[in-house]
């Protein structure tokens, strides 16, 4: 075929890097950095790691983390502290402050994935004899995937002298990998026994390779049998943990659905208002989290905690304004409410676009929300999801108590069940209406804070959740908080159970089809309102 790939002989100037000698304030380091910038970076790093100096680990880490940069105008390697686009430069050895420049005056020391991996291994290698058990542990972990890179005597010596339990376990895993690779059947079987309980991908592969080794391989039959048995056991436990993981994924998706829907369960479920602007109230809550982070840039955790009440009050107030200015004139006219609130949702979106930006805004996860709780090599739960699952249950319980145990909850239920009777009993129904709507809106705001930890915060955030929210409320049964909880969790788990074999899109479609069929059978959802309350709806 007519390939249009034509190579025009236009070399871009970035390819032609003419470098003069680099200085660093230390004669021993100068040739290394010159080689790094100009020539073979792997060689330069190996040389650096081989030097006999105390700060070589710090230097290597500095290169890895981008703290060492080339000050272009001076051709000098310096250590940098960044503050936005203004960089403060320090001398590499003495730490003396040199200058403060714009970020474009320096260029980072080039690193790519391969080099980064190499560098990490070098640093880890320096850590094997370290005093700090954490450093030793990283060093040993780096060896697990390449057990042949260290002599067995050295590992044995390290095991002999090690006192820390975790490091010891990691060292034993390395030795087990070495034993499996051995040619002595007894050693090999010992290795298999040691690895059988280890579910990491590397170990499983090592065992599988032996079990599935070709017929003509030089292998004792007992070894093959032991490996086959270990493999089956491992596969079984991996299956088990995968199922557990899927259920957790489902519960976590469910908790997001419940959080998004629970405010709507109040405005739509209790009051019967079809609030299309519900998603935008969630979005405003997420923006509250963003603004709190701008106010408290150094305390991300505190900012997140504080943004919960702030978001509740702000979006609650917005909700009350919407109720007082628009919705109260439209009670009993669901179609008009739907259109009016849809209009409000577009206005709120565009308001954020004009006032803040059409771009998504960054909301960072505080340290305690990042990372995983790891139970073993194949089963770990992400912390942010765990927190949100717990948070969802807290919000749910709080709302349940408010509705069932407080005077406001009592009045709210009274008004929704029989407005005229409630008024006859002295309940100010219009005040209860706005407070109820405000509560629903406020809870949407809180949900927004939680969602800001999982997804994009931008003007379109709300649209992604509005349909799901209605789905959950309708499925669970209008007017019932328990229905929302059970409904949301069921939909979440169903979605995640379907996803692995149907794909994300088909899973969504299947859930929707199931929902439509379900509503045909039970139009009032999982937990339909009963008794006299039902007739009021």
């Amino acid at each position: 075929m007519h390939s249009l790939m034509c190579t025009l002989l236009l070399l871009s100037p970035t390819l032609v890097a003419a470098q003069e000698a680099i200085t660093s304030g230390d004669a021993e380091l100068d040739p290394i950095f010159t080689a790094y910038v100009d020539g073979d970076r792997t060689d330069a790093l190996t040389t650096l790691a081989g030097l006999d100096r105390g700060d070589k680990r710090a230097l290597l880490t500095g290169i890895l983390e981008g703290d060492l940069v080339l000050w272009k105008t001076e051709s000098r390697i310096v250590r940098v502290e960044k503050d936005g686009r203004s960089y403060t430069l320090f001398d590499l050895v003495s730490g003396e402050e040199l200058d403060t420049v714009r970020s474009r005056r320096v260029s980072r020391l080039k690193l790519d994935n391969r080099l980064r991996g190499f560098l990490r291994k070098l640093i880890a290698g320096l850590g094997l004899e370290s005093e700090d058990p954490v450093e030793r542990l990283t060093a040993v972990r780096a060896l697990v995937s390449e057990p042949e890179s260290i002599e067995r005597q050295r590992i044995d010596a390290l095991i002999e002298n090690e006192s820390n339990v975790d490091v010891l376990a990691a060292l034993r895993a390395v030795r087990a990998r070495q034993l499996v690779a051995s040619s002595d059947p007894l050693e090999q079987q010992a290795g298999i026994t040691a690895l059988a309980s280890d579910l990491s991908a590397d170990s499983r592969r090592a065992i599988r390779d032996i079990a599935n080794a070709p017929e003509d391989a030089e292998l004792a039959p007992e070894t093959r049998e032991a490996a086959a048995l270990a493999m089956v056991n491992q596969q079984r436990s991996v299956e088990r943990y995968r199922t557990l993981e899927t259920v957790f994924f489902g519960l976590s998706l469910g908790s997001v659905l419940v959080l998004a829907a629970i405010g709507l369960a109040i405005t739509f479920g209790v009051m019967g208002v079809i609030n299309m602007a519900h998603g935008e109230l969630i979005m405003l809550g997420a923006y509250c989290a963003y603004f709190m982070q701008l106010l408290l840039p150094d305390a991300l955790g505190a900012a997140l905690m504080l943004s919960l009440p702030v978001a509740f009050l702000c979006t609650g107030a917005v909700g009350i304004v919407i109720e007082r200015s628009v919705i109260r004139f439209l009670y009993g006219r669901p179609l008009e409410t739907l259109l009016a609130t849809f209009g409000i949702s577009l206005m709120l979106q565009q308001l954020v676009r004009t006032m803040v930006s059409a771009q998504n805004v960054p909301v960072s996860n505080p340290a305690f929300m990042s990372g995983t709780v790891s139970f073993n090599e194949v089963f770990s739960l992400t912390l942010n999801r765990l927190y949100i699952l717990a948070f969802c249950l807290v919000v749910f319980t709080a709302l349940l108590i408010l509705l069932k145990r407080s005077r406001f909850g009592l009045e709210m239920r009274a008004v929704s069940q029989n407005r005229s009777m409630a008024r006859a009993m002295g309940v100010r129904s219009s005040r209860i209406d706005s407070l109820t709507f405000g509560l629903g809106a406020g809870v949407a705001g809180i949900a927004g804070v939680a969602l800001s930890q999982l997804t994009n915060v931008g003007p379109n955030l709300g649209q992604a959740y509005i349909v799901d929210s209605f789905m959950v409320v309708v499925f669970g049964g209008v007017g019932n908080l328990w229905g929302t909880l059970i409904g949301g969790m069921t939909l979440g788990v169903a979605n995640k159970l379907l996803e692995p074999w149907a794909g994300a899109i088909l899973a969504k479609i299947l859930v929707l089809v199931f929902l439509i069929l379900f509503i045909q059978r039970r139009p009032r959802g999982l937990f339909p309102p009963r008794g006299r309350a039902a007739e009021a709806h």
Partner: protein
Amino acid sequence: MHMTTTTETKRSTAFGLASAAIIAGSLSSVAAHAQDDTIKIGVLHSLSGTMAISETTLKDTMLMLIDQQNANGGVLGKQLEAVVVDPASDWPLFAEKARELIEVEGVAVTFGAWTSVSRKSVLPVLEELNSPMFYPVQYEGEESSRNVYYTGAAPNQQAIPAVDYLARDLGVERWVLAGTDYVYPRTTNKILEAYLSAKGVASEDIMINYTPFGHSDWQSIVSEIQSFGSEGKKTAVVSTINGDANVPFYKELGNQGISAEDIPVVAFSVGEEELSGFDTSPLVGHLAAWNYFMSVESDVNDEFIDTWLDFIGDENRVTNDPMEAHYIGFNMWVKAVEKAGTVDADAVADAIIGVSVPNLTGGYSTMMPNHHITKPVLIGEIQDDGQFEIVWETSGLVAGDAWSDYLDSSKNLIASWRAPLSCGNYDVTTGVCSGQNLE
């Protein structure tokens, strides 16, 4: 939905009616609507709705380029006037707004559209009214219209070089093709799958996964990718995941502890603008393939960035690949108009083929007869400051291929809008030109 129509008029004092009168005779009926001393330029980018996040920046880029050109004396002695309309991320509205720009406002050229579906929606209007449009975004190819100039990358200018890089430099043997479920990822993945099979990758080493727009719950998919990647062969993800869905995807990768050294992700829709939305420290080392990065070191890029930051008045804004595409497209149009001596669509169409203008990477880009341009291909690794470190680039320029060589349906097709062929869809085996390229 919300619509805004801004008209910015800047009159030249240096060039008055005299120069306008000389050229008036050669103006087409389209331009007859325009004021005598200005040339109108349509800017058709969504300023509201879902796509506003990406397209607003391109509107600002166009206003900046037009300002700059006016400060340098305009074109053909006339000042340029931007006519900005808002198609509100609503695909049919793109066609209506394009018609309004051409018929009512009498624009000489339009710069606009982002998604392929919006381009497809505008296409019939452009062809009916014979008005040119510059389309600045990387796309799936399989199209060449007489009236559209594709200044973004075709698949052979982005996807294929990226896969080559992964296979050759990183030794990748197992591939996850993950995309959002719409035309660009589907076509790109079809091309990539055919390309990988042709290179001898077994089908069990390719996993294809599609997700809906704005997908936010990536737990199962990331876990699936992780187990797909634990088979001992080096695995990479080739991501055509669109816009918003990327942030939760990368967050989930970070949360489940998958680093770029284990399973690198190379993305075709993630640029500086998308990264400015969040903390990139967990993403360091993941890759993107583009034809331009803000971190490119060249004088012309430094100047472009300075002008942009001044124009937008915000030190923290970034530049990205589609902005460069508009920069190239706009300068190509200006050069072609000056060469033709008129803004008439047919004259400009003839003049623009072969026009070369500087791109921001320090070389030149040329308009090819198939209405695609030549570009360098760059692979960058994400850094913790939201910028890209360029780790690889093609040694020369790659010309955009309108019809992919790796798909059976298009491997015999070529496009050339130069006489005597003048066809966007010519089958070299049968010698038939299948007319327009709507399909």
